[in-house]
Structures are given as structure tokens and as C-alpha cells.
């Protein structure tokens, strides 16, 4: 019930914001903020009340579930479920949603009501993906994520928004359609095998598939998630979509929507197609390594701040691929932590870039320099965020990357070493953010003011979260451990 409540809260909040926004613009922001914070509080309280300790060895045990029949003739049910993994993802989504609304406060959007409507529906779509346990429902929420994001992009983006929006839409839609085909394939095969035609996730687990069919169906799913993550070579939409989005749009896009891709692989690809996933293991890790290194190289080459951060995001997501396809329990916890840590740090960096844009009206690095003088507070926050990108111990990202690589080492040493080169590469591009903007040559005659209290709060929340998780990551691990153990055991037990 709680799951439906949260989704409805967000969707209704969106509508309300739209309506209220026509009457008074300020109110729209407040409505949106209240809706998201309320949902966040509900989820956190729920987390506090439940400590998931049940060890899962058989079917999933959900902390909260909601299952009603929707279109029984076609086997489609409205099935939502949340375990530790989706709980953490949900909390993260709502936290960053609230933080980015705060970060946006002075952004001055035209038609704010409609903007926040899209924004809240976007959040609802993301949460829906995290909670969906019926494949058609998953596809439904996948599309619900896509459409508002497209509107946000073309409605409120920067100069090149149409190009970016179209590109983003085409990539995501096409890959989503391939996933739909795979869903249908699975549906029919399962139906033919067992006689029941259903789209329900739990029922479809354990469908026996021939190696070849399993592989192709897995690829169908994988394409959608791999475009979302994204993974080289399907990443082309990323730099344009990330850079052209408005402030909070980029945060949600980079921090949260990319995690739906990772979540999708963990929740759907691995348990539904374990043998196929195992056979793909080396290629998955290789794609991850390529993403890490290529993303780093591209990041270093950029002279546009936001584009640089976008490519750094691409590079960090490569670690997730490496971790997932190493099939080591150690790496999987690393993947979870990377999902959280990367979301936080990339959100921080993008909010920072937009704060700079608000002051200088440019993202061009060559027009920036020696801002530390005038903005020491922003500089200080940047140091922490840059160090998170670099993977400094004491911050959450280090734990994530360490665990991922430690697991990868046990599967494939050479690929692990190559991925670790990414640790060196991350220094090169990350320091550019700090040094070109805050140190080095002065941008001539640019007057910038330092962080306002609101901005300090926004980045402070993120930085605090990163540092806190860097030293006390156990709550996240404890919450996700049953889910992860279950996934690992599915993928590691050889099936007939």
C-alpha cells in the first residue's frame, strides 16, 4: 500500500503543482517540494521501522508489496514490490529529487507549474521502475520516465535542446521497444512451456530457455538498460542530453535515470537469464572497462564544464558494468554503493556547474579561472566533490570502486587492472574541474558571488551524505544485503 501511496503522492503533487502554478508561480515550487519531502519522509520512516534481516534463498521476500489484477486476460497484473535494494534506490531518488528542487529555487522557469508536473511525474516513473514487478508495468513506467524528461529537455533546456531531446528520445525509445520485444518473447515462451501466459516477474523467474533464445532475450533487455546507463558505444545521447538539460533535469537524468539501467540489469537481466548472463560475463566487463577508459579520455578533452562532467559520469558508470559482470558478492555491494555514491557526487557536480552558469552564463572552461578568491565556499565544496570523483577514501565513492575492483580482480585480473587505470585517469579530468575553474589564470573581470545559504545547504546535504557514507556505509549494505545475496545466488548456481 505504501508504494502506491508514494506514487500517487508524487503524481497528484505534480497535477496540483501544475494547477497551482497557473495561479501563482511560487506556489508551484512549494507544492512540488512538499510532495517530494513528504514521500521521502514516509519512505525513511518505513526504512527505520523495518530492518530487513530475512535471508533470502528462495523466492523474493518483499518488504512491501502490492498486487492486484489489472488485465487478467493478457496476464498483466499491477504488481509492485520493494526489497532492500529498491528501498535504497527509492530513498536516494526522493532525496535527490528534494535537493534538486531546492537547487532550482531561483532558476526562474517559465510555466513552473508544468515544469514541476513533468518533474514529479519523472520521479514517479523512476520510482515505478524501481518497484515494478510485472514486466508490462516495468515497460509502462519506463515510458513514463521518458516522456516527461523529453518535455523537460525541449521545454527548458539550453541552446541545443531540440537536437538533444530528439536524440535522447530516439535512443531510449528504440531500446525500450527492443526490450518490449524481449518481454513479449519471454511471455510467449513461458506460456508455451507452462500453459500460463503471464507478465509477472516472480512467475517468470526460472523459465527454462535454450541457450540461444536466452541470449537473445537477454540482449533485448540489456539493450534498453545499457543505453540508459549508458555504456559505450550506446552513449552518444549522453553528452548532449546531459548538457542541454536544465538544472534539476540534468541531476535527475544523470543521477537517477542512469541507475534505473543498473537496477534493471540487477533485478531483471541476471535473475531471468542467469546462464546467458554468465556467458556474457567477459564482454560485460570489457564494455565496462571500455566505458571507464573512453569516458575518461573524452572527459579530459572537453572544454565545456558540463560536458566534462557528463563524460565523467559515463566513466564512473563503467565501474557498475564491471562489477555486475564479475559475479562476485563483494563487487555487487560495490555496485550498489556506486549507484548511491555516484548519484550523490554527480548530482553535486552538476548542481555546481549550474551554480557557476547562473553566475557567468557560460559553461566554457576557458572563460573561467581563479574563482577561489571570490568563492571559497563553493571551492571547498568542489574539492570534496572532485575528490569523490577521484575516489578518495573517506568518501562513499572509494568504497564503491574498491569493492567493485576487488571483486573484478577475482574474476579477471587483466580487466581489473585496466579498470584500475581508470582510477589514474579520473585524476586527470577531475582536477581540471577544480584547477581550471578555481585556480590558474583569472577570468578577466568576472564578478562572481559566493554560495548563498540555500546553495550551501543544497551542496552541504550532498557532501554530508557522501562523507557520512564514506565512513559509515553499513546501513546501506545491511539494507541491500538480502536482495544482493539472492541475486548473486541466482546467477552463480548452475542451472540445468
Amino acid at each position, binding site marked *: 500500500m505504501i508504494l502506491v501511496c508514494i506514487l500517487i503522492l508524487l503524481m497528484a503533487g505534480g497535477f496540483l503543482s501544475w494547477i497551482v502554478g497557473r495561479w501563482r508561480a511560487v506556489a508551484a515550487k512549494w507544492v512540488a517540494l512538499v510532495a517530494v519531502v513528504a514521500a521521502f519522509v514516509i519512505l525513511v520512516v518505513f526504512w527505520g521501522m523495518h530492518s530487513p534481516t530475512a535471508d533470502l534463498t528462495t523466492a523474493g521476500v518483499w518488504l512491501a508489496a502490492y498486487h492486484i489484477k489489472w488485465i487478467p486476460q493478457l496476464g498483466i497484473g499491477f504488481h509492485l514490490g520493494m526489497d532492500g535494494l529498491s528501498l535504497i534506490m527509492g530513498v536516494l531518488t526522493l532525496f535527490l529529487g528534494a535537493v534538486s528542487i531546492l537547487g532550482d529555487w531561483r532558476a526562474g522557469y517559465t510555466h513552473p507549474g508544468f515544469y514541476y508536473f513533468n518533474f514529479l511525474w519523472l520521479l514517479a516513473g523512476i520510482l515505478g521502475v524501481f518497484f515494478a514487478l510485472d514486466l508490462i508495468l516495468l515497460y509502462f513506467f519506463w515510458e513514463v520516465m521518458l516522456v516527461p524528461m523529453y518535455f523537460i529537455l525541449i521545454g527548458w533546456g539550453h541552446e541545443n535542446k531540440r537536437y538533444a531531446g530528439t536524440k535522447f528520445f530516439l535512443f531510449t525509445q528504440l531500446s525500450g521497444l527492443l526490450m518490449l520485444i524481449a518481454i513479449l518473447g519471454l511471455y510467449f515462451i513461458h506460456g508455451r512451456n507452462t500453459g500460463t501466459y503471464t507478465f509477472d516477474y516472480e512467475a517468470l523467474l526460472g523459465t527454462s530457455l535454450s541457450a540461444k533464445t536466452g541470449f537473445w532475450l537477454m540482449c533485448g533487455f540489456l539493450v534498453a538498460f545499457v543505453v540508459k546507463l549508458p555504456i559505450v558505444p550506446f552513449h552518444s545521447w549522453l553528452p548532449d542530453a546531459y548538457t542541454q538539460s536544465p538544472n534539476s533535469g540534468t541531476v535527475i537524468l544523470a543521477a537517477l535515470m542512469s541507475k534505473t539501467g543498473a537496477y534493471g540489469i540487477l533485478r531483471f537481466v541476471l535473475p531471468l537469464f542467469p546462464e546467458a548472463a554468465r556467458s556474457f560475463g567477459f564482454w560485460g566487463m570489457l564494455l565496462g572497462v571500455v566505458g571507464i577508459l573512453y569516458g575518461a579520455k573524452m572527459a579530459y578533452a572537453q572544454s565545456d564544464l558540463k560536458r566534462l562532467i557528463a563524460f565523467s559520469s559515463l566513466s564512473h558508470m563503467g565501474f557498475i558494468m564491471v562489477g555486475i559482470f564479475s559475479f562476485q558478492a563483494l563487487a555487487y555491494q560495490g555496485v550498489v554503493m556506486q549507484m548511491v555514491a555516484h548519484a550523490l557526487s554527480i548530482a553535486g557536480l552538476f548542481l555546481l556547474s549550474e551554480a557557476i552558469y547562473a553566475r557567468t552564463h557560460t559553461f566554457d572552461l576557458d572563460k573561467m579561472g581563479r574563482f577561489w578568491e571570490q568563492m571559497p565556499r563553493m571551492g571547498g565544496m568542489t574539492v570534496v566533490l572532485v575528490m569523490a570523483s577521484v575516489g578518495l*577514501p573517506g568518501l562513499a565513492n572509494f568504497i564503491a570502486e574498491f569493492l567493485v575492483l*576487488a571483486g573484478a580482480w577475482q574474476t579477471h585480473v587483466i580487466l581489473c587492472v585496466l579498470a584500475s587505470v581508470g582510477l589514474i585517469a579520473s*585524476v586527470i579530468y577531475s582536477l581540471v574541474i577544480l584547477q581550471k575553474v578555481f*585556480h590558474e589564470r583569472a577570468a578577466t573581470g568576472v564578478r562572481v558571488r559566493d554560495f548563498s545559504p540555500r546553495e550551501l545547504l543544497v551542496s552541504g546535504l550532498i557532501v554530508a551524505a557522501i562523507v557520512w557514507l564514506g565512513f559509515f556505509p553499513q546501513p546501506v549494505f545491511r539494507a541491500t544485503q538480502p536482495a544482493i545475496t539472492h541475486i548473486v545466488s541466482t546467477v552463480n548456481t548452475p542451472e540445468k
Partner: protein
Amino acid sequence: MTVYHLIWLIPTLPLAAFLILAVFGGSRKVAALLGTVPVGLSALLVIWTAVTYLSVPPAGHGFSEVLWTWFTIGNFSPAIALYLDPLSLVFLFVITFVGFFILLYSTEFMAKEEGFSRFFAYMNLFVFSMLVLVLAKDMLLLYLGWEGVGLSSFLLIGFWYKDAQDAGQNAYAARKAFLVTRIGDTALILGLFLLLQDFGTLDIPHILQAAPGTWQPGSSRAVWATILLLGGAVGKSAQLPLQTWLPDAMAGPSPVSALIHAATMVTAGVYLLARTHVLFSLAPVVQLIVAIIGAATLVIAAFSALAQKDIKRVLAYSTMSQIGYMFLALGVGAWSAAVFHFMIHAFFKALLFLGAGAVILAMDHEHNMFKMGGLRKKMPLVFWTFLFGAGALAALPLVTAGFFSKDPILWFAMASVKGSFWLWLAAFVAALATSVYTFRMVFVTFFGRQQKEVHYRPGIRIRIPLVVLGVLSLIAGWIQMPASFGHFTPFSDFMETLLPPAVMAGVPAGLEGWLEIATAVIALLGVYLAWQFYVKTPVAVYRFKQTTVGARIYRFLAAGWGFDTLYRVLIVQPVVWLARVDKRDFTDRIYEGVGMLNLWLGRLFGRAQNGRLRGYAFGIVLGAVIVMTLILFL
């Protein structure tokens, strides 16, 4: 409740200082107090702990305390835990004691600088990280300290981000330091993965205990693990092949160079190798490599120092060289000798840097020694303390601590089972070079004709640290006297409760005495040569530099034997080219190509829609014919 239970305060006090200074800033007075007092308190705590440890050593191998478990995943649960034993105690003492005096010095040195509180914040962050590094019981926590010192070093090298001229250079030096050490750090972390895989834990005492049982001596696992650990060590300690960052790091303020790039951070590698000595004993090949790297670095760096003009760069190469000595000692199994030299080196090198800082201040931020001169009359205290430090560096016999710390290393290089004549020879030749460049520096800076007016008199806060360190540079050696002097060895006795003594090969008796005499002679010879070439007849050097051969040699040495150029050509330029050539992302071309194809096809087919009725009619007819044909014939 013993003092051991207060150990956690030792790193926490500087951490608190950092947090307060970083978040709240503060006036100069507050920052000066906050910057120095906590570290001072930590130093007192360390001394108290040391006294307790020496009188009543804790049961077992050392004292450990778990603060909290960092995280738990399956069987892997690294803990935030502290471990105290002789090795960490020595390092703790040096870090806090020398650190305190350097911070005291900084309150005057940085008095006129902007960003005063920022400076002390970073310095305290550094001290905290370094203390965590040496107190860590778990390798993961050690790595936290390891990276923390790297971060602080980066922030402090680039501290002066504003000078219009230097801005690009300081940032570059900071970046270079971070990047080069990162390469080493990555090797280290790969080593951690291997250790984790083989031992299931990163707890140091546990690994050291389990290693002989898990690994056969000389097994490939041991070799790989130690090579990776060595990779980390050479990065942080500026040894071959990752040594190029240290000379450029002199862009930071002199106290930074004193603390980070002389006394502490660069010795982290020495600490790491000493701490994991059991693993290196299981991989003799790698231990030999350690010795060779040490020997090679000490020679290369010593000769490079001969050609430097910037007083701080001389000291930088000197540090590189002296750490080479420590690595050499580690490589031949003389663990406690390495640690002893570390301690003594920290004293005299910090002293030299602080002295150089005072000179630079007096010379209006001039670094070039050859633009100085005759300062011994104008800055007597600085001169005499600098002289003590220089003597220790050159290992002047008997009167300086340096003699008592460097001499054993030479002895062990020759006489240890893992040593060899060639290692000794390298160290011996470099010792001559050391003495020459050291006193070249002294004579050029403090003797001769004064070229610039001195308007600066160092205050008490600069003089006290110089005096303290100066005295230590002379007398601290007396706690470790070699056999010929009565074999008074409290230091190594203390260390050998933890670190095994060096295994000696059979050498003729009395050789030790002869080698000592040789070392002493060489040190004095160096002084004489420096006197000859830089005071009596400096024109000889000048003429030599004018010859083509001389000029080339000089340039080669001054550039650190060309490593920078080598790396720039082999690595930096290809990477930059690679980045630039694909700036627009070639994969994008594929998708753009698809888009272009669509547009082109669209335009192509669009030509059919030209509004011409006859064309349409023709199309209809053609279509009808085709369909009919198909129906009739298929």
C-alpha cells in the same frame, strides 16, 4: 586505563583542528593557535605513550584498539582500528614532534600570506592523514591515510594559486604530484586486491602472521603482491621510476616542503615496506629490486642535486637521494637502520628546508642560490643551524647524527647477506656527491660576496624550531652507535622487537672499521671539493660549464637525467593527442551517419513528390503493371 587508550586522540586532535579551520576559518591568531596547539598536544601524548611503551611494553606484539567496523560484507570486515608498536611509535614521534615545530615556524613564515587559516587547515589535514597512515591496523585504513596525505600534498603544493606568474606552474606541480603518486597508489590498491584474495582480510598483523604459512618463499603470489606494494611505495617516496614529481613540488611554501616532502609523506613508502617486511622476506627477488631501486635513485638524485640552482630543488633531489638510502637499507634487510635513518633524516632535512625558507624570505622570495651569498654574517643563527643540518646530511663523522645513521646503511649494503659490493659502491660514490652538493649549497648561499640586501630578521618562532632541529641533527645519532664505538644500540634493540635484524654474510673482521673510516674520509673530501670549486676557484666550474661536453652534462643532470622528457614523450603527449583527436567522439559519427542517411533517403524520395501529375499518373500505371505481373506470374 592506560595512556594507550588515549591513542585515538593523537590523530583526532589535528582532525578537529582541520574541521574547525576549514568550516569556520578564523582570524590569524585563532588559526595560528588552532593550527599548532593540537599537534603539539598530540606530540606530548606521543612522548607520554613512548615513555610508557619503553618502560612497560604492552603484552604481545603491540597495542591495538578497534574504534568501529568500517563495513561488513560477507567475511570481509575492515575496521577503523589503531595499532601501536615500535615502528608506528617512531613515526608518530617524528610526525608530531617535527610537525609541531614546523607548524610553529609557519605561524611566522606565513604571517603575511593570504589564506592563513586555509594553510593551517590543510596542514592539519595532512598531519591527521599521516598519523592515520602509521597507526592503521588495517590496510584499507592505511590506504585512507595514504590518499589523505596525497590530497593534502596536492592542496598545499598548489596553495599559492594566485600569483600571476606562478599560477599555472603551481597548479601544474600540484597536478603532477597527485597524478604520479596516483599511479603508485593504483599499484598499491591492486596489491590490496591480491592480499584480500589470498588472505580474506586486510588486517595487517593477521596478514603478516599468516603469510609464511600461506605463501612459499619466492612464490609468484608473494612476488606480485610485493611488487605492487613496492609500486605504491616508489610513488609516494619519489623513487625511480615515479620520482619526477618531487622537484616540482617545491612550488609549495617551504614549511610544506619541510613537513611533507622531507620528513613525512615521502617516507610513507619506507613505512609501508618496513611494515610489510614479512611479505618482502618471502619474495627475495622483489627485495633485491627494492635495493636496486634505492641504489639507482640515490645515485641519480645525488648527481642531479649537483647541478641545481634553486636551493629548494637541491634539497628536493637530496631528499630523493636519502630516501634511496632508506630503500637500499630495506632492500638488504637492514630494517631498523632504514627506520633510524628516516628519523635522523627527518630532523636534518626539515631543518634544512626551514633554514632555506628563512633565507628565501630574507632574499625576497629569491630561490636561486647563485643570486645569494655572504649570508653567514647577516643571518648567523640560520647559518649555524643550516650548517649543522648540512653536516648531518653530508654525514660528517662523529659530530653529526647523519654519520651514525648513514654509515650503518653503507655497512649493511656491503655486509648483509642480501647486499653486494656494487650496492655499497653506489652508495659510497653518492655519499661523496652528497657531501659535495651539500656544501656547494652552503658555500654558495652563505659564503662569498653578498649580492642582495637583507632586510629580514627571523623572529623567535622561526628560531626555536631551527635550534631544536639543529641540536637534534647533532646529537640524535648517539642512540645508535656502531660496534667500533662501543655498540651502544638502544634504538635497534627497540626496533628489533618488531623488525628482524639484518642477516650478515661472512665478512672479514675489522672491515666495518675500515668502511667507517672510508665513509668519514669521503664526507670530508666532499667538503674540501666543494670549498675548492665554489669558494676558492668558482671560475673553474664556470669554465667547465661553457664547454660543450660540460654544458650537456650540466643540462642532463639539472633535468634529473631526462626522466621528465622521457615521460612527456612516451606518455603525456600520446594521451593528450588521443584526447584531442577524438574530441567530437567518433562513435557519435555512427549515429550521426544514421541520421544523415535518413535525411538523404528522405530527400531522395521526396523528389518523387514534385506535384507533377503526369509523374503520379506514370507511377500509378507502373505500379499497376507490376502488381498485375506479380499476380499473373507468381
